């Protein structure tokens, strides 16, 4: 496979209708002058994306990443994306209603997450950041479990080994090293599963990401790095992270990188499958840059109107991942109104279930502070637990006295 060559090859079809109008030389692409919104959009168009479904919902082929899905599988991808978007919208609403302290929305990134998530086998292992709600969905993690940390009742409400889906990681890029180490372990075990590490364009600036590239390349670890370049790291545009397209970073570390249309679920699925297969067969790591867009705020604490133009969002709305798949499915006669209505109904039910589950989520017991600090126990924790228990009990005594009075 010539992944890198493919990524750089000029494709007659082009990534968008406007590609030819704004062609620039590679030297010009890296020019510091090309910053700001206009420069970003231009660069997006200049760099070839692997694409199998155009924004208009037209199916196209790619020489290296062909994929043949059954109607059932195609409908499944649509369902996954719609339900994930619904779940995300519900969580945003719950935050606005004060039920969650914070929410990191994935709006706009459904294709990147569902496409890559559905490429995984059960025995693969996922190391997510904190926005991978769609990947979690694909792994079978109950969506309500994702909300515990945002509600403040825990720091991760699921057993990572039940679904081979590690806890969300808040510190940017840390998990890429955990993924690499885990992949080194997979390799030592002689297993043929693969590991995937998710991170964003902002995390690409972190030393840990560079170190994970180094380690994975040196040990030829079976790990796929899936970078969702959603264009913004809170208020910092990608230009503040890098002067070269992110997928090209891989080359300097000695493994291939490819840029995929992150709003094209089919392309994300096809490229991730290929990368995982590569890892499984001992060919080492690969970097996938899913070129996408975060439609909403970084988190509910953020106000994107302070740093980005409405026109930019509007331009990306035209590339909506769900819309394009629906157009395609309809044009091929693969879905009918009845199916779309049933998905809508399922969405409403999911929203209701999530809402009720969050509101019913109990605060943890006071003594949970002292639980699981250490696996084998720790004298100081034991001492403080006993002191705190006695302190808590003193209120019960006071209450009893008050009642007696």
């Amino acid at each position, binding site marked *: 496979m010539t992944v890198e060559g493919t990524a750089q090859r000029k494709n007659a079809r082009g990534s968008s209708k406007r590609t030819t109008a704004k062609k620039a030389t590679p030297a010009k692409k890296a020019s510091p002058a090309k910053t700001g919104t206009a420069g970003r959009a231009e660069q997006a168009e200049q760099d070839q994306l692997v694409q199998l479904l155009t924004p208009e919902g037209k199916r196209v082929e790619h020489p290296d990443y062909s994929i043949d899905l059954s109607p059932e599988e195609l409908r499944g991808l649509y369902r996954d994306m719609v339900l994930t978007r619904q779940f995300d919208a519900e969580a945003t609403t719950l935050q606005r209603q004060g039920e969650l302290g914070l929410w990191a929305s994935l709006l706009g990134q459904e294709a990147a997450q569902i496409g890559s998530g559905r490429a995984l086998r059960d025995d693969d292992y996922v*190391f997510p950041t904190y926005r991978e709600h769609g990947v979690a969905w694909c792994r079978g993690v109950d969506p309500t479990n994702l909300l515990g940390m945002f509600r403040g009742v825990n720091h991760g409400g699921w057993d990572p080994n039940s679904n081979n889906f590690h806890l969300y990681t808040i510190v940017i890029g840390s998990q890429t090293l955990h993924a*690499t*180490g885990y992949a080194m372990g997979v390799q030592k075990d002689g297993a043929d599963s693969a590991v995937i590490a998710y991170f964003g364009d902002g995390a690409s600036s972190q*030393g840990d990401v560079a170190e994970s590239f180094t380690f994975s390349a040196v040990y030829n670890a079976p790990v796929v790095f899936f970078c969702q370049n959603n264009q913004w790291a809170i208020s910092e545009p990608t230009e503040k992270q890098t002067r070269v397209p992110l997928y090209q970073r891989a080359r300097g570390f000695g493994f291939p990188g490819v840029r995929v249309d992150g709003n094209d679920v089919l392309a994300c699925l096809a490229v991730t499958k290929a990368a995982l297969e590569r890892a499984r067969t001992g060919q080492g790591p690969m970097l996938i840059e899913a070129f996408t867009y975060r439609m909403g705020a970084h988190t509910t604490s953020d106000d994107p109107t302070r740093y980005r133009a409405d026109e930019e969002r509007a331009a990306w709305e035209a590339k909506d991942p769900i819309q394009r798949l629906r157009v395609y499915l309809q044009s091929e006669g693969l879905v009918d109104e009845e199916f779309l209505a049933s998905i809508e109904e399922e969405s409403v039910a999911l929203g209701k279930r999530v809402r009720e589950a969050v509101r019913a989520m109990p605060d943890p017991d006071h003594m949970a502070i002292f639980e*699981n600090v250490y696996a084998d126990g720790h*004298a100081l924790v034991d001492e403080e637990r006993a002191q705190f228990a006695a302190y808590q009990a003193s209120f019960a005594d006071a209450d009893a006295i008050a009642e007696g009075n």
Partner: protein
Amino acid sequence: MAVHEKITIAKAINASLRASMEADPKVLVMGEDVGKLGGVFRVTDGLQKDFGEDRVIDTPLAESGIVGTAIGLALRGYRPVVEIQFDGFVFPAYDQIVTQLAKMHARALGKVKVPVVIRIPYAGGIGAVEHHSESPEALFAHVAGLKIVTPSNSSDAYWMLQQAIAGDDPVIYFEPKRRYHDKSRLDTESIPDPLHKARVVQNGSDLTLAAYGPMVKVCLDVAKVAAEEGKSVEVVDLRSLSPIDFDTVQSSVQKTGRLVVVHEAPVFFGAGAEIAARITERCFYQLEAPVLRVGGFHSPYPPSRLEDEYLPGLDRVLDAVDRALAY
């Protein structure tokens, strides 16, 4: 290996790693130069030859990468023993240790374990250039989720490392590098003390000296000199800094009525502050003098020509003993 042999701490640690690797195929040794070179202090000498490159792993020069990948390996069921080449080099890995390694078990509500042991040759006295002589133990002891231990002799070095590796918690294992080549008895047969138990290494009745790692030897020397002056000094080797075995210190102070804590790390916000506070709480009515501390200054570790002034030595500790006894 013979029982009751006199052996250096470096060789005892090597024997301990060997024993751990033989006992459990999941134990890995990782770090910079740990393979063919056997580590810059030769602590891992010969291990790669006997256990292979797959288990004694020479890593890229990237401390965050070493610890971060060790976490991933631990999540996969391995027991990595990581070597940080020198104390001052641990800081690039500080984020991984503090934000990830220490908290992962708690974050996962106990569902995952990350039994990573981080070996750090620490503290001064070897005439090194900067960043090679630091004592960052308090920075780690402050972090819940980590355990911190530091041996002062060969038997402890041998047993405590095996205990740390066998446990399911992350452990920072500080090695007193200036004692690496000190020989002491290695007893491979007796049942060792629990990992976090402090030990009275010199009995006395007038004053307690509490120390750990490289300072235990200084305190034993102090006790000898003090004895010649007619003062009976008890020395407690703490062995573990997280948790600290306050019960053993308390028993000693209840007997002697006086406590001086000695460490190389800066006194300010150091382990001595914690010990002084706790022991004052526990022994307020038995104390005949305030708990005193002897340690490094609130300055960067000095150039090596000044380290004898910076490090607590016989005279500075004796001075503190005299001050405590003068109350």
